[in-house]
């Protein structure tokens, strides 16, 4: 039986439910409202006061870049905070509601279930990200940021959301209870982030002690999306000098790409394990046989 990717029942059913009523629209409006409000506050308190004694084209650009950076970091933090809460319950809540067996005994493959769950639980987040695009484009009026920069940033957002989301899905298939899965997902993210920074700092030290001077990025940074974001913003704003998060040496233009690839590989592995885990008869790739 053919179960097409774009016709995933789990995804389409969930989207239908979400789009019903005012909740989703209200969520987007209030999210954008908060973003606009913060950007505005930021503009009048910091930028106006420091720049209006010298309103040149360049100052406007500076303001634009400054707001862009602030919004970019804000939205990034939001993705890290919201995505786990939405994905970590996707399988465990089916288990809690006693609906998982009903789903598993249909001809929907484990692959279809996991991908459908991942996409549908991330759909809200993705919608927020996409709907913030117009807000970001206002920054074009100030100049200093190009549409290409924006595409780069938003691609990275989506990859980060997928990576974090797959950690959530993974723990959702491991733990029976949504609360446990959610808490463990946050803890894991926090621990991974912290470990990657500490380990990188340590490796940097060793590198300097041995008199290293070429371009160098400590490898634990590759799993950390904060490093990728810092790299993207550095590329776009300051020309990428000074390493990444202060933890690398030399100019690394394409670090964020390797960072994205690393995260996607990890996400792929976690999704694969999740697919195997929810398959009740535990046959590796048994979904392949009939699709």
């Amino acid at each position, binding site marked *: *039986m053919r179960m097409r990717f774009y016709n995933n029942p789990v995804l389409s059913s969930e989207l239908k439910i979400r789009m019903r009523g005012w909740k989703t629209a209200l969520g987007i409006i209030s999210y954008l409202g908060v973003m606009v409000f913060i950007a505005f506050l930021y503009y009048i308190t910091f930028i106006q006061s420091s720049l209006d004694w010298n309103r040149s084209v360049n100052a406007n650009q500076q303001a634009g870049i400054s707001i862009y950076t602030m919004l970019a970091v804000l939205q990034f933090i939001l993705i890290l905070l919201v995505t786990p809460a939405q994905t970590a319950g996707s399988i465990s809540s089916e288990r809690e509601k006693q*609906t998982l067996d009903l789903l598993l005994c249909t*001809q929907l493959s484990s692959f279809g279930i996991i991908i459908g769950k991942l996409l549908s639980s991330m759909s809200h987040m993705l919608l927020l990200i996409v709907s913030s695009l117009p807000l970001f484009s206002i920054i074009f009026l100030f100049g200093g940021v190009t549409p290409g920069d924006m595409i780069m940033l938003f691609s990275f957002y989506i990859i980060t959301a997928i990576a974090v989301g797959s950690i959530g899905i993974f723990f959702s298939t491991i733990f029976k209870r949504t609360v446990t899965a959610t808490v463990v997902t946050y803890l894991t993210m926090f621990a991974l982030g912290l470990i990657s920074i500490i380990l990188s700092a340590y490796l940097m030290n060793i590198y300097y002690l041995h008199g290293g001077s070429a371009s160098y990025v400590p490898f634990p940074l590759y799993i950390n999306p904060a490093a990728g974001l810092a790299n993207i913003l550095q590329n776009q704003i300051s020309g990428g000098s000074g390493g990444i998060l202060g933890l690398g040496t030399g100019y690394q233009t394409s670090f964020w790409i390797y960072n994205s690839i690393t995260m996607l590989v990890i996400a792929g592995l976690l999704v694969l394990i999740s697919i195997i885990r929810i398959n009740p008869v535990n046959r590796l790739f048994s979904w392949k046989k009939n699709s």
Partner: protein
Amino acid sequence: MLVIENLVKKYGSFTAVDKLSLRLDTGDIYGFVGPNGAGKTTTMRIVATLMRATSGTVKVAGIDVAEDPMAVRGKLGYMPDFFGVYDNLKVHEYLDFYGSCYGLSVNERKKRTDELLELVELSDKKDSYVDALSRGMKQRLCLARSLMHNPELLILDEPASGMDPRARIEMKGILKALGSMGKTILISSHILPELAELCTSIGVIEKGRMVYSGRVDDLMSRLTGKTLIRIRVLSDAEKAVRLLREQPRIENITGEANMLELEYTGNEEEMSGLLRLLVTEGIPVVSFTKAEGNIEKVFMEVTKGEDEVLQ
């Protein structure tokens, strides 16, 4: 249609299903009876491809569940003993969703939804939210859900549990209708009379082992020639028991306080002799009645000896 051979399921060192074999031909309605923890749900979940067997084979329509679970899923409908529903979904959307999980087209889904709601008598609830349905209605809806892809085999794990008597009768009516459509059904229950009326065959399972399996008619005929007698005395119950034990054709004297029950194979004349004996021996008999033998009694009899495998 369904062939189970030497099925074994172990949870750690505990054996939940022990060398169980079973065969259902197309059109059979097989009642699976047994006390709590007998292994009914475990067996059914293995058939429904939700669990792997420790050993043994299960084939649905000739397909091994371990070899091609996806194909098996297309052939069977499963209704678990406990299940939940999604909130936020309307009745028709609920069926539509599961229909799409079986890869049905939009038109097929619409058609099946209407047909099945008709069958389970929920047509008027089509636009209600699923979580607003009563328990009995949810169970009927879940039955309809398991029928969306028009499976040949139905695995129903206590489909009438928690239903009131009226709802049970309605459920039985629906299952009878399914039987007359030629579906093969494996249905479990604790309540034998409920199944006896509906099923063509019965299997009694206890501690993971099939202790009896056969056609309902055969099971019923075990009843013939046996009478259940209830005797109530004012006092001297012990003496009465002692007296009765000495009499022929009496089995299984049970009782508490002044109420005795026994199984008797003699005729009515001999029964009156029995009463006369008790009275002349000075036992204050209050009542002496012939209870109608029922299928529950047979069930108890069939399941009482764990190690003695009947048939």
